[in-house]
C-alpha cells in the first residue's frame, strides 16, 4: 500500500489550477458576450486582459499536470523528464483532452478582439476548452464500459454550467468597480437571472453523473470517493447559499443604489471564489487519488 506523496499533491494542485483557469477563461468569454452592452470600455478591457492571462495559466498548468503525473508515477523528480511516461499519459486519454483544451484556449485568444464583443470563434473555443475535461477521467470510462453517451453529455453540460457560474465571479468583481451603480446593478441582475436556469441545469447534470458513478448512497460515507463527493456537495451547497443571498437580498438593494450592498456584494463574491477554489481542489482529488465504485471491476 502507498501513501499520498509530494508529487501526488503536485498533480492535484496542477489539475485544480488547470480546472480553475480553463473554466474561468471560458466563463469569462460567456460573461463578455451576455454583458458586453452593459460594461464600460475600461471594464471590458480589464476582463479581456484577465481572460488572456487565464488562457496562459491554463496552458502552463495543463503542461505541469502531465509532467507532475510522470513524477507521481515514477515516485521521484526523474519522472518529470521521462518522455516514455509522458507519452503513455498522453495516449491514455490526457492527450485528446489536452488537445481539445489547447485548441479551445487558442480559439479564445484569437477571438478576443479589442473593443468588440467576443467573436463566435471565442465562443466555440470556450465550449471546446470547458468541455475538454470530458475527454478523460471517470465519466469517460463509463462510455468505454457501457457504450452510452449519457455520461459524456451530462459532464459536458455540467462543465459548461460550472464555467458560466464560476467564470463570471472575477468579471463581476471587476464590473462592481464601475462608478456607474446603475450599470453595476444591471450587470449583476443579468447574471443572476441567467444563473438561475444555468445552475439548475448544472446541478441536475451533476446528480445524473453521481447516479452513474455511485452504486449505493451509503458510499457517500463508507468510501473515500463517496466522502469526497459528500464534501463537494456541502461546499456547493455553501456556494448556492451565497449565490441565493446575492440574488435575493443584495441585487434588489443594488437597484436601490445602496452603497453598503455593493461592499457586501464584493465580500460575498470573494467568499464565493474561495469556496469555488475548494470545490475545484476536492474535484481534482476525486479525479486523481480515488475512483468511483461503478468502475471497480473487482466488486
Amino acid at each position, binding site marked *: *500500500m*502507498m*501513501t*499520498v506523496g509530494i508529487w501526488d*499533491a503536485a*498533480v*492535484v*494542485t496542477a489539475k485544480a489550477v488547470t480546472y480553475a483557469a480553463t473554466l474561468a477563461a471560458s466563463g469569462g468569454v460567456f460573461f463578455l458576450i451576455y454583458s458586453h452592452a452593459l460594461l464600460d470600455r475600461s471594464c471590458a478591457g480589464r476582463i479581456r486582459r484577465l481572460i488572456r492571462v487565464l488562457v496562459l495559466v491554463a496552458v502552463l498548468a495543463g503542461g505541469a499536470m502531465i509532467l507532475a*503525473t510522470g513524477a*507521481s*508515477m*515514477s*515516485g521521484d523528480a526523474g*519522472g518529470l523528464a521521462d518522455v*516514455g*511516461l509522458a*507519452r*503513455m*499519459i498522453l*495516449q*491514455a*486519454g*490526457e492527450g485528446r483532452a489536452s488537445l481539445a483544451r489547447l485548441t479551445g484556449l487558442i480559439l479564445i485568444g484569437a477571438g478576443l478582439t479589442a473593443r468588440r464583443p467576443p467573436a463566435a470563434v471565442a465562443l466555440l473555443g470556450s465550449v471546446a476548452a470547458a468541455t475538454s475535461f470530458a475527454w*478523460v*477521467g*471517470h465519466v*469517460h*470510462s463509463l462510455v*468505454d464500459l457501457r457504450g452510452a453517451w449519457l455520461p459524456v453529455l451530462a459532464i459536458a453540460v455540467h462543465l459548461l454550467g460550472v464555467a458560466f457560474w464560476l467564470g463570471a465571479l472575477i468579471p463581476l468583481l471587476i464590473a462592481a468597480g464601475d*462608478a*456607474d451603480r*446603475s450599470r453595476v446593478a444591471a450587470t449583476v441582475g443579468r447574471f443572476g437571472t441567467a444563473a438561475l436556469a444555468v445552475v439548475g441545469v448544472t446541478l441536475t447534470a451533476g446528480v445524473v453523473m453521481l447516479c452513474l458513478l455511485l452504486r449505493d448512497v451509503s458510499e457517500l460515507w463508507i*468510501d*473515500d*470517493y463517496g466522502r*469526497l463527493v459528500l*464534501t463537494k456537495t456541502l461546499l456547493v451547497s455553501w456556494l448556492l447559499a451565497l449565490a441565493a443571498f446575492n440574488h435575493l437580498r443584495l441585487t434588489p438593494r443594488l437597484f436601490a*443604489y445602496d*452603497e453598503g450592498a455593493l*461592499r457586501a456584494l464584493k*465580500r460575498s463574491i*470573494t*467568499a464565493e*471564489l*474561495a*469556496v469555488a*477554489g*475548494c470545490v475545484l*481542489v*476536492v474535484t481534482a*482529488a476525486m*479525479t*486523481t*487519488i*480515488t*475512483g*468511483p465504485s461503478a468502475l*471497480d*471491476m*473487482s466488486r
Partner: protein
Amino acid sequence: MSKPKTLGRGTSAEHRASAASRASAGSRAARASLALCAAVLAMGPAFGHAKLLGSLPAAGAEISGSPPSLTLTFNENVRLGVLKLTTAGHAVPVAIDPSPAPARVITIALPPLTAGTYNVQWSALTPSDGHVVKGTYTFMIR
C-alpha cells in the same frame, strides 16, 4: 421616467476598509483551501479505480531461490509504466516494455536475485481514462 442616478466612488477610507475586508476574506479563503488540501491528501492510500489483486512473488512472501519473473495481476487492463526493484538500497536492473499493451496480468522477467529483502515499486495507468494506480510491497529470498 427618472434617470438612474450615478453615485460617486466613495471616500478613500471606505475603499481602504473595503479592500482590507476583501484581503481578509482572501486570506481566510487561502487558509481554508490549504486546510482542505491537507485533509484531502491525508485521506490515505486509495488511488484510481484499478486495483492490484495479487502478485508473484506475493507481498510479504518468503521464498527460496531466485524467481524467474515477477507477475502483477490487476482487476482491469492497465499499462505498466514503472517497475523498480531495490534491495538494501541498491537498484536491481529490470527491463519493462516501454510501450506495453494494456493487460490485466503483467509478467516481467527478473535477473538472478541473491538472498535478501526486495522492495517492489510499481505504477500503472488505466488506458480508458488515464488514471494512475501504484503501490509498493516487499518479498524476501532466503
